[in-house]
């Protein structure tokens, strides 16, 4: 027999007669948390408690994110990268959230690359990842993070990682970064519900950047907001202005605290993907310039600069010098990535299993033998991405 409490919900005690009353989305009031308004104004009382160095740090990481995306798009155009998904426009959303995470936390991301650098991943390894070199993910794993390519597929893993943290009693949380598109997947639904049912320390951070490739967030779901979806799973949620780095930081820091105390949380960060889905995509096919220009006016770095100026912090920031430093870091990373030696075919067979099974051993030997007998096969093997 179950030792659980009786399952009847207290709310069931309220019975209404007369006309049937339906629950509607309008019963919900979903605010969007904001600290600094688009015009740069703010109330000092609302500013999160960070010191001057941390305020400057946030700017530096946002700038890193922007410069990194710009450089990656540029080397892709030159044919030095397979493809790339730019994060331009999402800097506040990405940095404000990742700045709250601790080294033992786990981070599973889609479209958020700088958080890896914040955890100590060398920039070179991110370049390797986008060149289709598996050592990128190896490096991420060494820093408790991974990139998920199959949309939504990582949320159940995050629920499992969080469950492991809970069982171990570790002072850490598992975080999934997901997009608006991911909220429509079955895996996201099951994982968020699962995390809510088991009360594991999982944080679901949804960057609603308005597009899943070409489909707009409006068309992605009939729900008024993505944040409200969490309520159906018994999970608290917050919607935040993703162009306001301080609002994001404050909301996610508080969310992280709640998660640590055994209450999983869902955060919707409202932002905008300024560039294409990846370098292979042409957004002019599905969105208007006017819309993009309107979001240009909501530039997150611009808004944060207004705040820094008002606080008297801007005078201590040499924007151009920081850009030069990030450029130099990127140049060095690219040089290192270029020096990554071409690998033999044995790398493809390695790590499928801990031990190579006989079938794989045989396929490897047969292919190695073929390469030796027909070296012209190498004419068809190109390890450098052309873009």
């Amino acid at each position, binding site marked *: 027999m179950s030792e659980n409490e009786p399952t009847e919900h207290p709310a069931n005690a309220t019975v209404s007669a007369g006309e049937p009353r339906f629950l509607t989305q309008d019963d919900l009031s979903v605010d969007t948390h904001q600290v600094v308004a688009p015009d740069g104004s703010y109330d000092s009382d609302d500013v999160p408690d960070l010191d001057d160095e941390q305020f400057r740090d946030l700017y530096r990481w946002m700038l890193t994110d922007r410069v990194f995306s710009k450089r990656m798009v540029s080397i892709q155009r030159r044919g030095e990268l397979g493809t790339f998904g730019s994060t331009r426009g999402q800097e506040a959303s990405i940095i404000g959230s990742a700045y709250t995470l601790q080294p033992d936390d786990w981070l599973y991301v889609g479209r958020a690359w700088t958080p890896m650098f914040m955890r100590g991943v060398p920039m070179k390894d991110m370049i390797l990842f986008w060149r289709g070199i598996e050592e990128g993910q*190896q490096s991420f794993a060494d820093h408790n993070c*991974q990139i998920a390519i199959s949309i939504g597929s990582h949320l159940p893993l995050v*629920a*499992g990682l969080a469950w492991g943290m809970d069982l*171990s009693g570790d002072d850490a949380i598992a975080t999934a970064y997901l997009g608006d598109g991911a909220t429509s997947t079955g895996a996201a639904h099951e*994982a968020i519900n699962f995390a809510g049912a088991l009360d594991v320390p999982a944080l679901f951070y949804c960057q609603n950047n308005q597009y899943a490739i070409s489909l707009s967030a409006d068309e992605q779901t009939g729900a008024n907001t993505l944040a409200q979806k969490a309520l159906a799973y018994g999970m608290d949620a917050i919607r935040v202005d993703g162009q306001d780095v301080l609002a994001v930081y404050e909301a996610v820091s508080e969310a992280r605290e709640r998660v640590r105390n055994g209450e999983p949380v869902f955060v919707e960060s409202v932002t905008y993907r300024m560039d294409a889905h990846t370098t292979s995509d042409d957004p002019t096919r599905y969105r208007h310039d006017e819309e993009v220009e309107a979001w240009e006016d909501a530039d997150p770095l611009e808004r944060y600069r207004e705040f820094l100026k008002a606080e008297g912090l801007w005078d201590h920031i040499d924007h151009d010098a920081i850009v030069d430093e990030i450029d130099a870091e990127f140049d060095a990373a690219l040089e290192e990535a270029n020096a990554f030696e071409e690998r033999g075919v044995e790398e493809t067979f390695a*790590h499928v299993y801990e031990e190579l099974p*006989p079938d794989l051993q045989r396929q490897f030997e047969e292919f190695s033998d073929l390469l030796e007998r027909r070296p012209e096969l190498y004419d068809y093997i190109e390890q450098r991405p052309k873009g």
Partner: protein
Amino acid sequence: MQATIVEAVKDALHTEMAADDDVVVFGEDVAESGGVFRATDGLLEEFGEDRVVDTPLSEIAIVGAATGLAMYGYRPVAEIQFSGFLPPAFDQLVTNASRIRWRTRGALSAPMVVRMPYGAGVRALEHHSESMEGAYAHIPGLKVVAPSTPHDTKGLLLASIRDPDPVLFMEPKRIYRSFRDDVPEEDYEVPLGEAAVRREGSDVTVVSWGSMMPPTLEAADEADADVEVVDLRTISPMDTETIVESVKKTGRAVVVHEGPRSHGVGGDIVARINDDALMYLEAPVERVTGFDTPVPLLSMEDYYFPHPPRILDAIEDALSV
């Protein structure tokens, strides 16, 4: 002790949960009710609610969370209630569990077991009778195991939980309780990737596994020939050597499986025999399989199921050339 297959599953789980604190058992109805087949009966009482967990009805989350737990250092043993309900979670096996080691160059791995009863013959409605080992064995990075005896069930399950890679453990529910066998009470492993010769013979080789073993052995007994029966035990990675050595000896072969014929494991076994023993063959290799149809519901499933006369007919065909 004498135990059925489902009792051997339970015994293996008790053994390994007692031996390794990192083993966590979960799935639908596995804790309080002890599983719909009682395979996890008594675990909750013995190991507590942290390690034996009733989950929401969420196959994707069950398999995905198992992968996350394994990445974090645990040894999850997840139950899928019937194999017909695994397909939603196919993505988690293909996308994550089977390739996390490869994707991270060994920095992370997913040592986990997904257990599930499979196969027809229990008079069930739709989606309770599938044998899709061919589909799962097609996933690189995943191991697929299907025991046919209580002794092997315990030893293979212990080996699977301790294996460094993800294992799909397919339990032949048709014979879950149909016979008892001597199962050692102590801890032992039956290694993955090793087939067993169940019956030695010199005229023809019959390869099968899981719930097809009893009808295969029955047909072998009835045949007017000296039949060798190979129980594959692990579908992937496959013990090609045992099959090939047997066929080299007998020169004739029959493969018996319950799943659909086309694109099935049987076709792959025939290809392996062609690769390594073609010149020893005296007759085409026969296949006895389910049809390329959904498994019929209870009223018609006996037409689908490879009963002994079908197997015997194929053995006689292989011997007639």
